[in-house]
């Protein structure tokens, strides 16, 4: 407001004017201004704008997905990955396997840890990919179901097999033909993720857990059991526990498994549905037992000897994070070379020794034994025959199934 002090007005009048701006019903308040302006704006633009909006189909059925490949003249590749999913040297800043790749090929890798959560990352790249624009990323690493969705939507590029000889030869058999990407035409696994049952010996206090049923039913564990918010892992383990195959279950099987979990939730057996944050609850002993990711368990065990894991006789869920090349990526060939590089035994072993996830590459054992004897013998990193036989993948879902199943599962978790 301007300083309004004309000489002609008496002090009393001036005060009255000033008051009228500040107090009383008729005051020119921010509220009345807002009221007036929003009313007007809504009347004029509102309705028209409302109906003009709309979200175009996300799927891409037409061609024109590959951008011009600048791999030859721009010797670089942009690699987006999850946090703590790459080997690091002592200084904590350099990634030895990536540096070796650059040294050999001359291709600089811009490595970014900008994926924290599949759903959030999907929200992040969706606008660009739906609009058929470059996301600025040449490789993204996404979990099976999201990789499947991107392939279904036509948002990723078909890989050129001639650039991927090692990948083709060395990818482990459990990963060779997922039902959402037969023959690995669009994706190659980065790491496998085994979902197992983890426990804290101290917190269990003598209670024995061998199956998921023990977690869901034993009254001694009431309020100290954790399940994962990742629908496929929790539901997959439940289906296995009920002797149903997650690779080929029906909608009724799903509902039955859901009802089983709901019963435990209603009893107060389940403390929480968690993402990655179950690890701190488990080490503190707030969770006595939970459905957990094996990679985490290996790392937790290193710090806390009370942490253990069990693989139920009914089997365990194996999923993977997959490298994909999004549409319009500028350096497709470079990206393919990098993907192929991680299927050579030596870099694969180096990576496995550092991050402790399930290695999806065959013929790594020897190299890994050179680096770390224990890791080479750990079935959670290099699964043996018995372990491999127990692994199950969650079947891929159609878009309608996905919405329905996720919706029902969200209800179970309370939201």
């Amino acid at each position: 407001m301007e300083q309004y002090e004309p000489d002609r007005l008496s002090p009393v009048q001036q005060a009255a004017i000033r008051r009228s701006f500040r107090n009383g019903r008729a005051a020119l308040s921010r509220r009345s201004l807002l009221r007036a302006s929003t009313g007007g704006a809504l009347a004029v633009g509102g309705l028209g704008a409302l109906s003009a909006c709309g979200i175009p189909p996300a799927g891409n059925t037409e061609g024109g997905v590959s951008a011009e490949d600048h791999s030859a003249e721009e010797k670089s590749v942009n690699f987006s990955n999850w946090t703590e999913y790459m080997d690091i040297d002592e200084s904590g800043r350099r990634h030895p396997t990536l540096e070796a790749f650059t040294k050999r090929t001359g291709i600089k890798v811009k490595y970014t840890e900008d994926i924290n959560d599949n759903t959030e990352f999907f929200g992040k790249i969706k606008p660009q990919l739906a609009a058929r624009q470059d996301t600025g990323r040449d490789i993204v690493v996404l979990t099976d179901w999201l990789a499947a969705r991107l392939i279904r939507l036509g948002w990723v590029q078909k890989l050129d097999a001639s650039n991927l000889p090692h990948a083709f030869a060395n990818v482990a058999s459990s990963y060779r033909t997922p039902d959402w990407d037969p023959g690995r035409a669009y994706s190659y696994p980065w790491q496998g993720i085994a979902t197992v049952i983890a426990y804290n010996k101290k917190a269990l206090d003598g209670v024995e857990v061998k199956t998921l049923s023990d977690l869901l039913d034993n009254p001694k564990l009431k309020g100290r059991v954790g399940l994962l918010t990742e629908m496929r892992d929790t539901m997959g383990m439940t289906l296995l526990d009920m002797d149903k195959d997650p690779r080929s279950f029906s909608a009724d099987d799903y509902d039955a498994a859901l009802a089983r979990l709901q019963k435990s939730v209603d009893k107060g057996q389940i403390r929480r549905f968690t993402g990655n944050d179950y690890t701190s609850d488990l080490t503190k002993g707030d969770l006595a037992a939970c459905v957990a990711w094996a990679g985490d368990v290996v790392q937790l065990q290193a710090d806390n000897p009370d942490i253990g894991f069990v693989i139920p006789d009914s089997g365990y869920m194996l999923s993977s994070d997959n490298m994909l090349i999004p549409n319009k990526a500028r350096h497709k060939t470079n990206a393919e070379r990098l993907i192929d590089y991680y299927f050579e035994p030596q870099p694969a072993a180096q990576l496995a020794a550092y991050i402790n996830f399930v290695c999806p590459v065959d013929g790594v054992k020897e190299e890994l034994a050179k680096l770390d004897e224990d890791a080479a013998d750990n079935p959670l990193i290099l699964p043996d025959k018995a372990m491999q036989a127990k692994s199950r993948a969650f079947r891929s879902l159609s878009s309608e199934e996905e919405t329905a199943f996720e919706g029902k599962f969200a209800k179970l978790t309370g939201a």
Partner: protein
Amino acid sequence: MATVTEAPPTPAPVAPEKKPPRKRGRWTPYLLLLPGLLWLVVFFALPVIYQASTSVQTGSLEEGYKVTWHFATYWDALSQYWPQFVRSVLYAASATVLCLLLGYPLAYLIAFRAGRWRNLIMILVIAPFFTSFLIRTLAWKTILADGGPVVGALDALHVLDVTAFLGWTAGDRVLATPLAVVCGLTYNFLPFMILPLYTSLERIDPRLHEAAGDLYAKPSTTFRKVTFPLSMPGVVSGTLLTFIPASGDYINSDLLGSTDTRMVGNVIQSQFLRILDYPTAAALSFILMAAILAVVTVYIRKSGTEDLV
């Protein structure tokens, strides 16, 4: 500057100076408003319109969404998720009351009794803001851990028996119960209560207290008749600043709660990100906005402090 005063005619104006300088003065306020208005349009009005539109669309991710004026989404969302709405309001209201009970004495102390400690206490109030919201909430998981001293003490004093009877906690734990969520909300939004309370208390002339004492008012009467009424603006804005963000919060419920403590923020998040049901998520957001607006309007009318907001 002044528009009405007549400037003395400038001697021999040069030809192009047709526009008197006061013309510019008249537009200055609007120019100054412009950045704020633009900000509001881009980051508030447009998203609101976009969400309003999304809430009446139907379709799927693959086929795209079209505006079909499908208002039933609102009804479906409300009938499915009303428990979460009720819970949000209850939790936010509880946290607001707790904040007021904790914050008022502290603000009073800072304003009237702290003396040279005033700045230090203010810093202590604000300092938690220097770390992230998430970290502060996670810290409560350690504080309230099952085997931790807090829960141990509460258990030994049989406080947990009482709270469990009331349904605030379950078993011998505080984490993953409604009590933990309300505690987290209270902690996270406490400074929003203290700061407005402090500013309105600090403005009260201490001589009014002396005058009340001279008129034989007991300290309690002074507080009731003088201090509290004068601090009402702070109370109102403090409660609003606490209640509004608390009712939309989902982090506390996510980290400190369990399946039976989910608030409407959690539902919106899961609808948007997991289930990809954008219309329902948008409708839920609008219902939440409308609910808060209604609550706030009633509250302001009742407390008779319209010119504050």
